[in-house]
């Protein structure tokens, strides 16, 4: 259709007034590159967006009954889950979709990282995406407290406590987050405001920028531009997106009906349990949601004091450093900037995946029946989780070698050596980490590969 041809109906009416046909024209010409990577990576962003929309709809529905307050938070959610017709379903979908959204977001982030879609001119896409990742974690953290049950109370007490390690303004930040010295109903009021107003607004803004820059620039072509082929975004790709969303919705509905309180995995269940009681002592087995487990485990690996600082402070410094490096990857990866393959960064992606996998599994206490209370049981967990991580790594490495012809493995080898020495030989996580980091740095410098491997210390 040409922009000037008169049209009848609603489209014509709108087009005459607002000139919308160039928009359709634009979407028709926009193409999604095909042939180079499996197409699946291009759908993950749209899938994340879908789950976010589900969150808004179910969140607003929950708001119709939810009442924040000492005497009402827990009670109103119990009311939603037991009395309100289909209340259990709305709550189950909100919870399931929250977890699935973060899963698809994490996979989306790692796939764009491994495909180097962050390279110029798409630095802003990466940065806004990283910001959205932070916002999603904030949604999960603040939503977790809203039912005001025992588990969420302690998880929030531990989680908010870590901000005290921020230099200079740490204590003030803690007070502002908690609305007082301790986690109390004031904390819930603040988290509630954050969860239903502040975060959704920031998120909508970031999503707009993220999508706008993507629409302006199109999808990143593969490095070397092996493909000349493309698929029109509209209607071909958009229809595929739509089909996927239907599949997601159906999956979501099935999960919510079959497992309304979650799969019961560590950090992935939302049984209401008993009401929060700030004056009850903590009990063993308190865990945050699964996407925080790695930080939770890292905090445990640090001793009370290290390098003249308190353990948790050093740990949060390390986590901030890792996050910082992750955020500025588009500027660190000089090779991809010049449009060439950067095997060092591909390998960094895998090293980070192994690092996170091991810590997450270990935090979930896999391999023992109950929460370990002594060093021997902790060692059993470490060994078991090391075997799983190494198994995953063997499969991944074989695929990389045979299918993708990767040849550079220094960083992922370092990450795996760290896990093996700690898990299988029982050496201290931190000591091995430091040793492996130094050895890796020496190897990289000696082999003159520091340019591709400048991030050697990152993993440990």
């Amino acid at each position: 259709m040409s922009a000037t041809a008169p049209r009848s109906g609603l489209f014509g009416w709108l087009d005459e007034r607002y000139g919308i046909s160039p928009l359709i024209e634009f979407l028709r010409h926009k193409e999604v590159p095909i042939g180079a990577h499996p197409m699946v990576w291009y759908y993950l962003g749209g899938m994340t967006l879908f789950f976010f929309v589900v969150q808004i709809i179910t969140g607003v529905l929950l708001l119709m009954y939810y009442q924040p307050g000492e005497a009402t938070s827990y009670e109103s959610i119990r009311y939603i889950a037991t009395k309100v017709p289909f209340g259990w379903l709305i709550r189950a979908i909100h919870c399931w979709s929250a977890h699935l959204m973060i899963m698809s977001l994490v996979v989306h982030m790692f796939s764009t990282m491994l495909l180097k879609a962050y390279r110029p001119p798409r630095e802003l896409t990466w940065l806004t995406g990283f910001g959205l990742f932070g916002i999603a974690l904030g949604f999960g953290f603040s939503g977790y407290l809203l039912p005001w049950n025992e588990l969420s109370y302690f998880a929030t007490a531990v989680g908010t406590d870590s901000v005290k390690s921020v230099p200079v303004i740490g204590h003030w930040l803690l007070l502002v987050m908690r609305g007082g010295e301790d986690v109390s109903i004031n904390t819930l009021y603040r988290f509630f405001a954050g969860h239903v107003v502040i975060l959704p607004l920031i998120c909508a803004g970031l999503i707009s920028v993220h999508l706008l820059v993507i629409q302006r620039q199109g999808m990143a072509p593969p490095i070397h531009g092996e493909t000349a082929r493309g698929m029109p975004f509209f209607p071909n790709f958009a229809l595929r997106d739509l089909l996927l969303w239907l599949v997601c919705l159906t999956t979501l509905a099935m999960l919510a009906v079959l497992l309304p309180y979650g799969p019961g995995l560590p950090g992935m269940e939302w049984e209401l349990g008993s009401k929060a009681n700030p004056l009850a002592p903590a009990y063993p087995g308190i865990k945050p949601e699964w996407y925080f487990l790695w930080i939770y485990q890292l905090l445990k690996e640090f001793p009370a004091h290290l390098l003249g600082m308190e353990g948790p402070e050093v740990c949060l410094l390390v986590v901030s450093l890792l996050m910082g490096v992750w955020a500025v990857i588009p500027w660190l990866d000089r090779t991809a900037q010049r449009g060439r393959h950067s095997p060092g960064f591909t390998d960094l992606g895998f090293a980070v995946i192994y690092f996170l996998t091991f810590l997450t599994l270990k935090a979930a206490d896999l391999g023992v029946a109950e929460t370990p209370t002594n060093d021997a049981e902790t060692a059993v967990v470490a060994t078991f989780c090391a075997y799983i991580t190494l198994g995953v790594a063997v499969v991944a490495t074989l695929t990389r070698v045979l299918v993708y012809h990767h040849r550079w493995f220094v960083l992922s080898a370092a990450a795996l050596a760290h896990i093996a020495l700690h898990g299988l030989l029982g050496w201290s996580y931190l000591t091995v980490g430091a040793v492996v980091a130094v050895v890796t740095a020496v190897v990289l410098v000696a082999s003159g590969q520091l340019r591709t491997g400048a991030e050697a210390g990152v993993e440990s």
Partner: protein
Amino acid sequence: MESSTDAAKHTRRSFLDLVLGIGATGWLASVLYPVIRYLTPLPSAGPSGPVKLSADQVKTLDKERFVIVPVQGKRILVFQDPAQNVRALDARCTHEGCTVQFVPGESVIWCACHNGRFDLDGRVLSGPPPRPLSQYLARQDAEGGVTVTPQTA
């Protein structure tokens, strides 16, 4: 103003920029200051003197050998040591802030979150807590009533 040189124009320009900058900063500060103050919670009110435990709290203390009571916005662990003395410690673990408990069988203070252990004076025995728990004054009178004083002992 044909008479003014480029240099004079330049200084006038940078002077105006400076004034504008100061104005903008002042404006921003006057907007942010009330917001920051608004978000900073007031110190929790409440009696600053000794706090007497309620009958229920004393009953729990007798039954469980310990009870956690709120004193001036803090959680205080009140417990009976093996010599039947009533004592008080800060109930907030110095590691990540979980609530500790008294384990009568082992005569230790235990934090379940990361397995931190303290002795009855609040000193760290094992686990990740970096600092001891603060001690508070607790007194039991002849009728069995218990008072906690929110000053560290």
